[in-house]
């Protein structure tokens, strides 16, 4: 086995209240495609951000070609030979392929100091030729397909003489043919002695292209091995193989009448033919990996996005909201995935954030006549969530992630919803707050509220839900009874290794 190109040991990254990475290790060798595998939140992205100089690790060591390194910024990482190809290409759409490739390291005529476009175009042609790519160097990047943009990014990595190329979900936006092309290039990179760190959720791809794999779970290193010597079962077990070590609050479902019925709900390019029913007092888990279309489904139910097909019935009546206003009036609340971008107005005080959805109740003919009631209202719901802050007058941006999430929850419980939709309510928050959120969800269900819970954490979905709807790339692959299924089954439906009858039904 050749010497390691990159050796990561005892790497830890702590964010306030959360250990994103806990003493992990990773060994990469030249001429090898290495898969980094783990559920959402396993710490993969954090590791990539540390390797590319975006985050600074709390402690631990990274050794590149025998030398200990620590990057202060992304440029240092690039200069050291580590280049990441991002999920969303970070390119300049209005510039040509050549200009993009040489951005930041332009070639100059040594005498006149003028930019030497002729030489740069020649080199670009040579690089593209080496990758057998049929792209004109003068094309503007905005006129290229997503796949071709990926290729250009990889070409750029080559021009930088990268030693390690990191690919984070590189195939998520590509078609079958394009994936083939990408793999061909990955193989040629490998032959030219580069190391490739390949992050993917798709097992067929991992088994096709990767030589080695490393598995992380909950920020911890679980194990590694040769792909050829392992089976899918073994890897899945490593991904999920935990006993449900966290205790979830007791929840005995007392199902009331059916409140929501959804039939063949679809949205072009996001999800297709989702059907389910929801009862009062029920907690329905919605599970799937990134890109499965979970958030899009609930956004459509809430009226933020439009459905392209399908019907919904709310308490027996046909229902197709045109916006949040309408669905809120009908008793639906959605706690969105990204609390900073979708859940809160960061520059507003906690008071104003919490009262925002119910201003109508607090005002008369548009004038907020009940400031005293507003304060009482905020106090009641804020204290119920046990928000820790310097007071309700401070801006939301001063709070920690967990407390921000509590503000978002407080903001929605006051609307007295009949259906409460929670999209990743415990993402990135500390253990204590997590437990509080779990208790809150069970309390709501006990009061007869119907809950839809989206989570990327399998134990959470299993521990909290009554039933679990599993999605894979926009399709509903299973509806399981949470008490009768195993984590293994759920994960198999999520990565769709079991029959996809449901998907094509």
């Amino acid at each position, binding site marked *: 086995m050749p010497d390691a190109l990159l050796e990561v040991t005892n790497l830890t*990254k*702590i*964010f*306030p*209240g959360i250990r994103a990475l806990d003493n992990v290790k990773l060994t990469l060798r030249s001429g090898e495609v290495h898969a980094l595998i783990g559920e959402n939140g396993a710490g993969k992205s954090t590791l990539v951000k540390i390797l590319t100089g975006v*985050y*600074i690790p*709390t402690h631990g060591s990274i050794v590149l070609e025998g030398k200990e390194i620590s990057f202060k910024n992304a440029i240092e990482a690039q200069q050291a030979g580590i280049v990441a190809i991002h999920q969303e290409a970070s390119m300049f759409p209005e510039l040509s392929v050549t200009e993009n490739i040489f951005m930041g390291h332009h070639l100059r005529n040594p005498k006149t100091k003028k930019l030497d476009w002729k030489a740069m175009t020649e080199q670009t042609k040579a690089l593209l030729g080496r990758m057998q790519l049929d792209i004109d160097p003068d094309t503007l990047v905005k006129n290229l397909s997503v796949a071709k943009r990926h290729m250009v990014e990889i070409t750029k990595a080559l021009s930088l003489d990268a030693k390690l190329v990191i690919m984070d979900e590189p195939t998520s936006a590509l078609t079958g043919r394009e994936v083939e092309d990408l793999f061909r290039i990955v193989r040629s990179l490998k032959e030219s002695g580069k190391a490739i760190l390949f992050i993917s959720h798709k097992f067929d791809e991992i088994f096709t292209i990767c030589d080695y794999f490393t598995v992380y779970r909950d920020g911890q290193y679980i194990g590694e091995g040769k792909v050829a010597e392992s089976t899918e079962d073994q890897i899945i077990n490593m991904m999920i193989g935990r006993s449900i070590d966290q205790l979830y609050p007791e929840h005995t479902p007392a199902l009331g009448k059916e409140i929501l019925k959804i039939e063949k709900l679809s949205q072009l390019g996001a999800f297709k033919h989702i059907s389910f029913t929801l009862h009062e007092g029920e907690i329905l888990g919605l599970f799937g990996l990134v890109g499965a279309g979970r958030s899009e489904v609930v956004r459509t139910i*809430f009226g*933020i996005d439009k459905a392209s097909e399908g019907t919904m019935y709310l308490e027996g009546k046909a229902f197709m909201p045109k*916006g*949040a*206003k*309408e669905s*809120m009036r009908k008793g639906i609340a*959605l706690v*969105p995935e990204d609390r900073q*971008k*979708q*859940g*809160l*107005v*960061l*520059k*507003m005080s906690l008071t*104003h954030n919490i009262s*925002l*959805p119910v*201003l*109508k109740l607090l*005002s008369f003919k*548009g*004038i*907020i006549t009940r*400031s005293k009631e507003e304060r009482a209202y905020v106090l009641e719901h804020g204290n119920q969530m046990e928000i*820790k*802050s*310097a007071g309700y007058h*401070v801006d939301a*941006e*001063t*709070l*920690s992630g*967990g*407390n921000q999430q509590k503000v978002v929850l407080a*903001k929605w419980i006051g609307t007295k919803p009949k259906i409460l939709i929670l999209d990743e309510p415990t993402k990135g928050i500390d253990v204590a707050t997590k437990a509080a959120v779990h208790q809150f969800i069970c309390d709501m269900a006990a009061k007869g509220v119907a809950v839809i819970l989206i989570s990327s954490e399998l134990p959470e979905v299993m521990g909290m839900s009554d039933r679990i709807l599993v999605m894979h790339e926009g399709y509903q692959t299973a509806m399981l009874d949470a008490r009768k299924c195993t984590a293994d089954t759920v994960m198999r439906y999520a990565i769709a290794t079991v029959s996809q009858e449901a998907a094509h039904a």
Partner: protein
Amino acid sequence: MPERAPSSLLKKALERRELTLMLLLMVLLVPITIRSPQFLSGENINRILNDMAILSIVAIGEFLVILSNGIDLSVGSIIAFTGMACGMINESYASVPPFVLLLVGMGIGLLMGLFNGVLVAYGKIPPIITTLGTVNIYRGLTFVLSKGTWVTAHEMSPSYIGFPRTTFLGISYLLWIAFVVIAVFYYFSRFTRTGREVYAIGGNPTAAKFVGVNENRVRVVVFLISGTLCGLAGALWTARYASAVNEMATGFEMQAVAACVLGGVNFSGGAGGIIGVVLGTLFLGVVTNALPVVYLSVFWQTFVQGLIILVALALNTLSDQRKSAKLLAQRRG
């Protein structure tokens, strides 16, 4: 969760732009008064306030637009068109009472603001582009309306020209109107749903959408208010300066924006308050009026105003940067 460190009274005061401005004003007044004791005489204060009344009305409209993460560059042109229209009506129909002229001005301004708002909200044209277009359209319409001529003092009725100067309880009508506008919009920004929604849209349009705020409606409303207030300002302008000229209020949008920036209004929306804007206006007024006192030629006035805007913007950016650096430090650990 880390509690906020207890800060000294001075530090707290510096965090609030309103208090900083008051302190600065006082610091500024000391040398001015030493040099020229009559600067703080009742008469002079009254003059400064009257000078700034029209700006404060316009700045409040501009404030609401900036608060929604927009900008209204057309304010000067709306003032010119409405001012010209009021002057010409007064010239032809001297019997129309002044307060009706104010209403006419507001009506025309409302329509012009509505046009801006509809283009921004439903045409999805960025505010800066929309109003860059309408600033010329409205100025052009002024020339078309007047056919390039002026309305001079002796063509206008004494009741109209005298209106802003008429006093009630020792205070001019002009000032009373400014006070009422300030009070109404202080109330609007703090105690109405729409006011609260302007903050929400400016601070985070996505989060606002998730609670059912109608973004288009809010965008139309802020431009409509700005237009209406400019119409009011135009009617008052013609009367106060006793003439309606085609070039009136050229560049006035810069002063309105300056008052907002000075008052600590966040240029990307979502934060700021009316009190700050009023103090910002006052600050500009004191500086402008003090220039002759410190023997600085009036020709320097524009230069000094520009300097003040730069310093205020730099201060805003600096405090924003410090804030986000603090948050980032927490996050990066």
